[in-house]
């Protein structure tokens, strides 16, 4: 199953992450494995071992999500590929969004999140997207425009980010 931004049963557009790394989909013919940060290393190692002889695999490891590198890796794949991503929530969400943008279908994507205390927030006012330490429903400061933001429990799978909007007006109500 695809793992991105399934709509949670609670009625909000929140991501539901698997508690264990998902297994390798043996119906793929090639594999792109992406790992971000040290915690993802062992997950990617396990995936690489399980891919084994199922097909050729490409492994991309980096400290943080880098749009150019991820897009280049996606562009080199052929249809039949399975894309597996492990890392902190912000890097995984941005990577899954980039994979979608490249035309990947949900059933071609699998992922594992190593930490959920960080998320990408889209500021409705300056329209910048930045990673912040926050939880959906919580508060964060926009690193670009310094607005104090309500982080809405509202995820855009296309952007890979949560909506943030000015919290001061809301506090007045």
């Amino acid at each position, binding site marked *: 199953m695809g793992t991105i931004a399934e*709509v949670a049963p609670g009625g909000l557009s929140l991501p539901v992450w698997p508690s264990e790394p998902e297994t390798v989909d043996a119906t793929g013919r090639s594999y792109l494995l992406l790992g971000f940060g040290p915690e993802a290393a062992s997950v990617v190692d396990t995936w690489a071992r399980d891919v084994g002889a199922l097909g050729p695999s490409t492994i991309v490891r980096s400290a943080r999500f880098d749009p150019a590198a991820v897009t280049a890796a996606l562009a080199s794949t052929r249809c039949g590929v399975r894309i597996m991503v492990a890392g902190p929530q912000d890097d995984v969400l941005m990577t899954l969004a980039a994979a979608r943008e490249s035309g990947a279908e949900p059933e071609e994507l699998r992922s594992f999140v190593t930490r959920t205390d960080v998320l990408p927030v889209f500021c409705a006012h300056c329209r910048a997207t930045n990673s912040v330490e926050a939880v959906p429903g919580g508060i964060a400061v926009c690193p670009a425009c310094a607005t104090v933001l309500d982080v809405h429990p509202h995820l855009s799978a296309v*952007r890979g980010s949560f909506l943030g909007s000015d919290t001061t007006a809301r506090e007045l*109500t």
Partner: protein
Amino acid sequence: MTTSPTLGPDLVQGFPFPFPTDQYRYSTNVEPARGVVGTPVGQWGDAVVDIDSEYLHELAERARILERDPSRATALGHMGPACWDTMLTLMRELATSRPDVMSLVRDGEQHVWTNRLLGIEQRFTYADDSTLPTDPLRYIASQVQEDLVLLDQRDDDLWGDAGVVTFAADWSFGFDVGMTFLEIHGPVPRLRETGVITRARDFLMRLQPGQPYRRTNWTLTIGRRLDVSTEIYHEWGPDRPRILTVSDDDFGREVHLRTEVQHLIRLEESGAVLFLIRTYLLPLEVLATIEPWRARTAAVLADLPDDMADYKGIATFRDRAVEWLHSRGARETPRDA
């Protein structure tokens, strides 16, 4: 925030009053388009694209908003056919409903579009963006008062992949673009539990060309303010506490019943579903002069559950609105002695 200037009489006579009963709950309240609905003071509903006396004013407002924030007009890369389909569909709709001022004439591979209200005569080649002053979706959005959202249907779901939304009521189209219909409605309390939104989605997926439908939605808006989007929350959010401090007369002038008439149209060439969202605002001070509307609005607001009032952003002043509406009734139609 100030008073409503003199309203054109058509804005009262044509106001789509949204409450058929004394209780409002979410429902899949869709009906075939173009059915005429009579009201105590007039009627509405005969047109899919409605042009009223605010036409020039609202189009200027849209242009101003788009200039300040281009993200209100967004189309994902694959939506070109649906955007052209939308433009042509709306031009045909306008030419059919307002032949006095609009026309669309086919001239071989080209079309000639005339909109005399705006002094436009435009020759274009279908599917060729270079023959229009801007992209087709923004072009037609600059000539209709409706907001536009386009839903692409694929993988047994609907995706809001393009639109021009300048008059959003407490949401951000620029953020929501690319979401599924269910995701867009994710934050609405109670909605998913009722199954209403899933049924609406399933209804939309079966929508057939040539059979447009419509529904209404509503809220209360402070000031005659069409753009109450998330992006400029800081501009209008403070009105909510402030409105509790104003005089009774100002309250009636400032608080508006906001009705959205949403039309749902299956486009034939692209298979997309076009959502037209048209916003009408009527100040309570005018609404209260029409007794059935005053009484009905008071009843609906008094009955509305707290979570729904909260989501509609009217929790802080709903009680005052009810009291205000009751006071107007007591003044003009005294109870039996």
